[in-house]
């Protein structure tokens, strides 16, 4: 089983790749809307990528109001 740190790291890597961010530029505490300059629909696209990667289903309500990678990682970790 992955640790929360590993999960967070994998999310950051996936987001970096998906949104073509500079390697190493994203941090766990970052607000992804602000840091990546994305809108709510682009954030939903990221969720689908994360579901595929972690082989989980993340219902919409679980990520309602979440805007930083750390909280997102906690929600995913709870479903692993």
């Amino acid at each position, binding site marked *: 089983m992955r640790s929360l740190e590993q999960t967070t790291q994998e999310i950051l890597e996936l987001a970096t790749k998906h949104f073509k961010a500079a390697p190493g530029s994203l941090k766990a505490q970052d607000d992804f809307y*602000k840091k990546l300059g994305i*809108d709510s*629909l682009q954030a939903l696209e990221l969720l689908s990528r994360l579901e595929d990667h972690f082989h989980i289903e993340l219902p919409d309500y679980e990520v309602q*109001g979440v805007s930083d990678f750390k909280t997102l990682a906690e929600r995913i970790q709870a479903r692993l």
Partner: protein
Amino acid sequence: MLDLAKYSSIGEAVRDALETWPGEVCLYESDRGEEKQRITYREFKERALPLAKWLQDSGFRAGDRASIIMTNQSKWLISAYAIFYCGGTLVPLDYKLKPQEQWTLLKHSGASVLITEYPIWRQLSISACRAQVPNVKTVLVTEVPANAELAGAQAWEFAKGADKPTFVPRKREDLACIVYSSGTGGTPKGCMMTHGNYLEQCVALTSIYPFWPGVKYLSILPTNHAIDFMVGFFGPFICGAAVVHLRTLRPEFVREAFPKYQITYVSLVPLVLKNLQKGLQARFDELPPGKRRIFEWLKGINKTLTKSRPILPLSRLLLKQVHAAFGGKLEAIIVGGAFTEPQTLQFFYDLGIPVANGYGLTEAGTAVTVNDLRPFRADTVGKPLPGMEVRILNPDADGIGQVSVRSKTVMPGYLNEPELTAQTIVDGWLMTGDMGRFDTTGHLQLFGRKKNMIVTEEGKNVYAEDVEQAFEGLPVKEYCVFAANYIWPSRSMLGEQLVLIIHLEPGKQFTEELRQEIAARNSRLINYKRIHGIVLYNDDFPLTASLKIIRVSLAEQLGKLNRKETIVPV
């Protein structure tokens, strides 16, 4: 379609609809591309009436208020009908609000019943604010997992009365819904909508965009929103049409739903429409040069032939693949909730996909004007709907003034706010706070706002005062939040932003530490409520005798400053 002139209430009309089309499907529910259920009008009735009886047995009476906080799904509409059947008043709330915001509105509305989903209740039940809302006595929760803690609530699925409920008639002037257009942080603006408001609005809208048995409406906007309540519930039901709900609203599942259900209508906010445009444009750009030339040629023919009105069969023939991606049965995309860029509207119209843009506000009973597409005018928000009187107050030299509306669809007022109501509805005319003018052909064009608010591309209304709480306790002498366009009027409805005005304590400097604190507080706000800049103001704010900020005067003073030079980034 039922003849709505014969009816006095939403409940009465839907009751007849359920008897008129018993075998027609009224609801489809799909999750992640898999259909979970389809419900006929007969089955809808069989599910709603036991709930109505249960509510009546638990003491729910005519005029009592019941709130629904749910995502778009069948149980939302079944519960709403059960509430109307009992003669109750519905309080639809946004499931995306934070628990404390939902409790604030539940308290303000005076709701005695709350119907919600388990994941939402899980958050609501542990919120400290719950103790301050004793008016909510009964809570029904859907989709409760086995052995889950209900925290004083009851399972919706078991809320079934044994006998037949008694239908409670309501008059047109009775309250049907309390719809909150804002007020989660400041003054709650609960629009009191009557049954008459909805009946009149439905007649007006369906005269331009009709529904019929076989129509499938894709419900994406939250059903608590005035648009989806009308075109994703009441409108389709009184015409024997069907509503499609998706339990997971991701772009890929939305795209799949169009061909799968051969969707007839969908309502979208501008943000989603622009996303669709981006996706389509990327696909067009990938076409090999030869195919691209043919595509542009066919698009050109379509554009020429549909100049005066849409000709859907022709467009579907000419641009077959584009229309197939939308299911081939799409009559129109209804776009609302916020201002849409003309170029986005034109992009779709050129592909032969009519986009029904319009202008409206909850207070006016949803839509005031709608583009009738004859001809399509991307640069306007259309003409007033039948029954709507729209006039421009105090027009300037360019004919631009405040848009005001008089109609049977306009609400009687805001709940518990007589003063605000008196300011908003003057001699029967609703002061919209939006600036506009009519062109020579009677189409309305919008040019900014008079109100201290913004509307985001996601269709979210954000009142500046509602955001101020987030900055409470900031180490400054005074602060307040303004919509930048309220201070520096702009003739545009696009790219609206909020700014924080601060007046520092005497002798203090604006430090990096203070900027960081503002940024930290800002990031705790939901993304669409965030401020985009800080304005340093060196004088005392003008105050009333009761020490309230006189916003109009302060905005006037701030307006003398240069916008670009004054705003410091957060």
